[in-house]
């Protein structure tokens, strides 16, 4: 299978370990991963902030860059959600029906990492080893836009050595919301406070999720408090092995 990685601009620039882990994981599972260097950003921030016209070239770039791959894997629920649920809609709204059609074709072959592992590869156990106490935050876009359900938890439960603890009020939004975190910084912080309270109540060493953006928010708050709990992308846990430690 010709698998392409869309690493996301955020992971590329600020959290490359999430991208490297995705590559390591997929290669360990026997797949050759390609990284088309023409990729940049999915345009989600532009669309969600109202700048659809500015997002259009990014949507076109995504469709062109990933044309021809059998599967495009993204270690992010919200960027996958943008490709799947926004690209064609924005193209159509701005009158580019041809791009909308191509965006739909590419979107049908685009998968969030845990969807790819479970639905496409048919795996619940990726042979990982991670001897830590971990709690999982289901990010809103993976949960409600992509409907990933318990796929990430199924994968995590099969990680050897893991002590997986349930996060109270897990489905509540962490308060990130892209530019919301800056435009409505006070409300965002109030939501973050409740999320952190719940994370800390589990006694977990690690809070994990499928989105670097939400983790940047939660992790930034935990770091400010010197709370002693780290945020780690789900791909890093699934890529971790006994041999690699």
């Amino acid at each position, binding site marked *: 299978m010709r698998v392409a990685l869309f690493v996301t601009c955020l992971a*590329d620039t600020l959290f490359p370990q999430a991208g*490297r882990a995705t590559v390591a994981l997929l290669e360990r599972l026997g797949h050759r991963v390609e990284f088309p*260097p023409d990729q940049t950003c999915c345009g989600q921030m532009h669309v*969600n902030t109202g700048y*659809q*016209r*500015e997002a259009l070239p990014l949507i076109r770039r995504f469709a062109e860059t990933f044309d021809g791959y059998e599967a495009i894997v993204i270690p992010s629920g919200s960027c996958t959600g943008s490709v799947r649920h926004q690209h064609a809609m924005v193209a159509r709204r701005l009158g580019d029906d041809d791009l909308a059609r191509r965006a739909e074709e590419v979107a049908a072959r685009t998968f969030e990492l845990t969807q790819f592992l479970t639905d496409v590869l048919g795996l619940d156990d990726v042979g990982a080893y991670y001897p830590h106490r971990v709690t999982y935050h289901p990010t809103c876009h993976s949960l409600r836009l992509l409907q990933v359900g318990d796929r990430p938890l199924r994968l995590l439960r099969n990680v050897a050595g893991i002590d997986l603890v349930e996060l109270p009020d897990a489905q509540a939004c962490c308060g990130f919301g892209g530019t919301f975190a*800056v435009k409505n910084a006070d*409300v965002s912080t109030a939501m973050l406070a409740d999320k952190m309270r719940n994370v800390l109540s589990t006694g977990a060493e690690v809070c994990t999720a499928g989105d670097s953006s939400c983790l940047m928010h939660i992790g*930034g708050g935990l770091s400010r408090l010197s709370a002693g709990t780290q945020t780690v992308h789900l791909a890093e846990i699934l890529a971790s092995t006994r041999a690699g430690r």
Partner: protein
Amino acid sequence: MNAREAAGGSTFLGLPTSPRGVGHLRGDEPFPVAARRALADAQLRRNLGRATTTIRAKRARVVAELPDWEELREAGSAIKAQTMANLDGYLTQLEAEFTARGGTVHWARDAVEANQIVTGLVRDTGATEVVKVKSILTDEIGLNDALAAAGIDAVETDLAELIVQLGHDRPSHILVPAIHKNRAEIRDIFLREMAGVDPGLTDEPAALAEAARLFLRRKFLSATVGISGANFAVAETGTLCVVESEGNGRMCLTLPRTLITVMGIEKVVPAWADLGVFLQLLPRSSTGERMNPYTSMWTGVTPGDGPQDVHLVLLDNGRTAALADPAGRAALHCIRCSACLNVCPVYERTGGHAYGSVYPGPIGAILSPMLTGIEDNASLPYASTLCGACYEVCPVKIDIPSILVHLRARHVEEARHAARAPDPEAAVMAAAAWTMSSPARYAAAQAGGRIGRLFVRHGTIRRLPPPLSRWTRARDAPVPPAQTFRQWWRREHQDPR
């Protein structure tokens, strides 16, 4: 600009929105400013947290009982979409049926006209006091203010609306207007404002309800005019329908001689059978009950029984403008259950007053700007993380997150068309798009971004310059890595590029 772009930006400008200076669809300050004050109110946070958590759990329990809940939502959504596509026909049918059964129909273009019509009707009866059924729509148009200006006292008879009215306050929730008050605060309001109240009143819910009952009973028995909104109007029969919990609404609908109903034009449903869908969806979504205690329906005038002079005021007030927006018109499908408020993490923390409009929460964040025009409620579409909890519970499947995104685009497009001075955000967005449109520029920007490492102190970034200071006020910023992913990839794979 092509035709599609025009459809997404400016065709609505020709249709009238709700006028300024009347009613309660606009706040005095932007959402983030009002929200900051609300967040600082510990009592409010506690009241809201407790109330929304309770209603959420009740709703989830009764919705889970129905195996065909998703099919019901589909049906509700389909009926509303079909109604909106033929709204003109259903409204004239409703008018004909209502009139044939002895009622009188009035058409109001906006809040000003509706207030004039209702005030005139009450004046004609000679009444100086009216009893009101809980109605958000009459609050939308500021009817009580208009009546007061004409020397007419409007008495709210819904318990929560009465609390708000006596407290000289504003409703903060569609279904539970006094959700921001706890029972101790309510007792204080009653002791201070309620004529003839027992000075030994406790804050027991039963005692508070009894005090309100004694106060309102006198009003019910003396009133000659009742004013209501409507949850539904059936076009094929001319029937109006109000659902409620207390029975106070039914008192207003049956005891006075004159009954005036003010209704948004989107509340019409085609057929009697459609109520079978909505009367299942609404109570479970709003109060978390299988069925609401009181469902009142009336069809014109019945000689010798109930009100003998029955009026219906059909109000537009920006609804046709909302209907003209293909990507936003589903906001008109709302049946005012308030499930979206109860699950919204933003609403739960700020309460309804921060939204400035009688329609708060996720539905208010789309409905209010569509009724007023976006420039008058420009901060509301951004008052959401797009977490999607609202869409998940909406009984008529309004895709609120997508409409929020659409309205943000309309806002940006309208500002652009108005050719105002370019604002910093637009400049940043344009620059980011330009950068991201070229892998070379993007890689160069990534290299430049590592300038962020200059802000690192003791391994973290605790302070960034504005506007990113709004991030670092409460959160550390990530330290840019020594090597981006694509640099690593290139080294690892000896990519000649």
